């Protein structure tokens, strides 16, 4: 036994599994096990885009069996179509179907795919409008959206910094707790949206479990990356927490930008002035949260700008990606990473306060009240953006 090298012991079960797997597929045993059951078909509309007189549909096969697209209906009419990758989509495969169709601007259209077994998969285009093409104007519009929704509010929130510096310690703890409240709200919001997006992910990609991987992955990565610095005493540790908060909020804003960009691109979001203002009020509290840990440390202007950029700029990147290449899988992953990052930040914030209070209890009426206030502020400003 001891003469056999270790790698053999590591590989032996894997090799055996592979052999058994091949035998199962090649040996026809699979057919016996299936017992003549009909194929299970599961198609997901990954992305539907519109160009003049053209509907482009990206389909993903998230089911266990290959699916053949036989016919395509638009608004209850059979229509001609072309497909780039063929009409038979293997498991986890994808294809793009192009339907030359004179769709009507601002109206709803329903695209239905009829498979060779007669099953139908349907997608509703809620408000038809041409999908933006990635030109200069496109990037301009989405940069503007990102600026207004992410960067400007965070920068405005940073302006609370001078106020924070003048606060007594116990009131600073109130603000830190308030920040934690804001973040918990954002985290829950991101998690909720991630789970919603997960519902639209093709079955095989296991949307809900993708949320777990994304969120826990973010927590662990941030923990590993920043663990020691965040745990340090004094200003260095607090600054690390501020950066961590900025990163967490940035990741959250990336997901938010993705959702906004995607909604805007497919014409679902009526991004009226009210909504923009709502997002600005909602997100300006994020700036407050970032500077709260370093309120007494006199960070330079460059540091503040850097913190603001880290938190706000991802919104722009998110809007670009969302408008250009939105997919439910991507959204699920981004949003869950944001949620995980925020969870990690909340833990770090707790440790900042805990270190500062030394041997006195962390939870006082002020800290508990601060956290609750944070939640309520987010809920209140959330009323402005909730659709």
């Amino acid at each position, binding site marked *: 036994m001891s003469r056999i090298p270790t790698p053999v012991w590591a590989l032996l079960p894997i090799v055996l599994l592979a052999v058994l797997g091949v035998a199962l597929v090649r040996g026809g045993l699979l057919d016996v096990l299936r017992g003549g059951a009909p194929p299970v078909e599961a198609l997901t509309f990954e992305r539907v885009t519109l160009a*003049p007189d053209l509907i482009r549909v990206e389909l993903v096969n998230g089911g266990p069996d290959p699916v053949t697209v036989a016919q395509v*209906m638009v608004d*209850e009419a*059979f229509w001609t179509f072309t497909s780039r990758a063929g009409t038979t989509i293997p498991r986890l495969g994808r294809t793009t179907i192009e339907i*030359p169709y004179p769709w009507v601007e601002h109206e709803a259209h329903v695209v239905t795919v009829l498979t060779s077994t007669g099953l139908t998969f349907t997608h509703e285009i809620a408000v038809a409008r041409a999908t933006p093409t990635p030109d200069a104007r496109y990037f301009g519009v989405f940069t503007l959206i990102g600026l207004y929704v992410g960067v400007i509010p965070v920068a405005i929130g940073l302006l609370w910094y001078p106020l924070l510096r003048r606060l007594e310690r116990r009131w600073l703890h109130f603000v830190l707790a308030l920040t934690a409240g804001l973040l918990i709200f954002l985290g829950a919001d991101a998690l909720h949206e991630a789970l919603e997006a997960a519902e639209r992910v093709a079955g095989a990609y296991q949307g809900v479990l993708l949320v777990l991987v994304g969120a826990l992955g973010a927590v662990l990565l941030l923990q590993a990356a920043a663990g020691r610095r965040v745990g340090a005493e004094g200003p260095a540790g607090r600054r690390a927490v501020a950066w961590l908060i900025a990163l967490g909020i940035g990741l959250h804003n990336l997901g938010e930008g993705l959702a906004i960009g995607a909604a805007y691109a497919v014409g679902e979001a009526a991004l009226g002035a009210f909504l923009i203002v709502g997002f600005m009020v909602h997100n300006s509290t994020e700036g407050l949260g970032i500077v709260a840990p370093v309120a007494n440390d006199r960070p330079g202007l460059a540091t503040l700008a850097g913190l603001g950029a880290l938190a706000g700029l991802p919104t722009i990147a998110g809007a670009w990606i969302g408008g250009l290449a939105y997919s439910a899988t991507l959204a699920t992953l981004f949003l869950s990473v944001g949620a995980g990052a925020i969870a990690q930040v909340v833990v770090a914030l707790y440790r900042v306060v805990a270190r500062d209070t030394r041997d006195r209890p962390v939870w006082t009426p002020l800290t508990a009240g601060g956290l609750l206030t944070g939640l309520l502020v987010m809920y209140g400003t959330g009323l402005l953006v909730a659709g």
Partner: protein
Amino acid sequence: MTDDASTRPVSRRDLVRRGALGLAGVAAASQALRAAERGLPGSVSPHGAHEPGNAVGQGRVSDASIDPMVFLEQFDGGEVSRDAAGRTVREFHLTAVDRDIEVAPGVFYAAWTYNGQVPGPTLRATEGDLVRVHFRNRGTHAHTIHFHGIHAARMDGVFEVVHPGDNFVYEFEAKPFGLHLYHCHAVPLKKHIAKGLYGTFLVDPRTPRPAAREMVMVLNGFDTNFDGENEVYAVNTVPFAYHHEPIVVRRGELQRIYMINLLEFDLINSMHLHGNFFHVYRTGTKLAPDEFTDTLMFCQGERHILEFAYEETGRFMFHAHQSEFAELGWMGLLDVVERVIA
């Protein structure tokens, strides 16, 4: 699927050709019309690079259990003999079998059929004939044949359920003359009809109708995903069959269509003829027309004889005036020509 169009990149020329097909069906949907106009060779589309497609689906059906062009004019008079009283006896053989049929290009439906085809064969007798139908059930469910007509209760195909492997002989006098139908009446009724167990039972009057070019059109549809709604609509099972291959008609010749509505799930169906009007013989039970119209409504199981002749040559569309049905397959063309080249 013999036509591999769906897996082949489509060139601009293909699109132009499809557009021209749309031109043939002039008043299809307005979209089809516009598509056709843009598809005219030499014309430049004002709407960018993408030529609008056509509401006729993709590819062709090749395994529908019937050839719509053959079925259209195929009448089964049965095995003819005379009984002791000198009466004409017509014997028919119908066998229920399960069969997958192609109900749209590349879309297969697990049908229940009479003689392996949907619709079942068009049975034809003359009023007063003795009709004897030898029914064998070789399907997987219990079935019957319920004929519309005047006959004895025990020949009604309702209570005498024929189980798989069993046989039954229906015997009755063909009456009254008119356009009738037959279908399975086993329960659940809706399922047994929707699955394809139906056909035309035509009883001619003793004095024959005037000579005409005769066609059978069974209006039907298929619920391929079992949601209680039809995904596919057709005349004689194959959607767009007579659109892809127009029915050639001689100018001035009397056309007689035996049209039966066997659509399930949708309460009504209809027939609209382009560029012409037709005489309606409701249920075909009279020799004088009831109505002169170009649009006719059919309830489930309702059937009428339509007669018309074209004064002009050219391509004329016929379709359900429910636009949805039309664009989901119930659409066809009559190509009126000076003389038919055999």
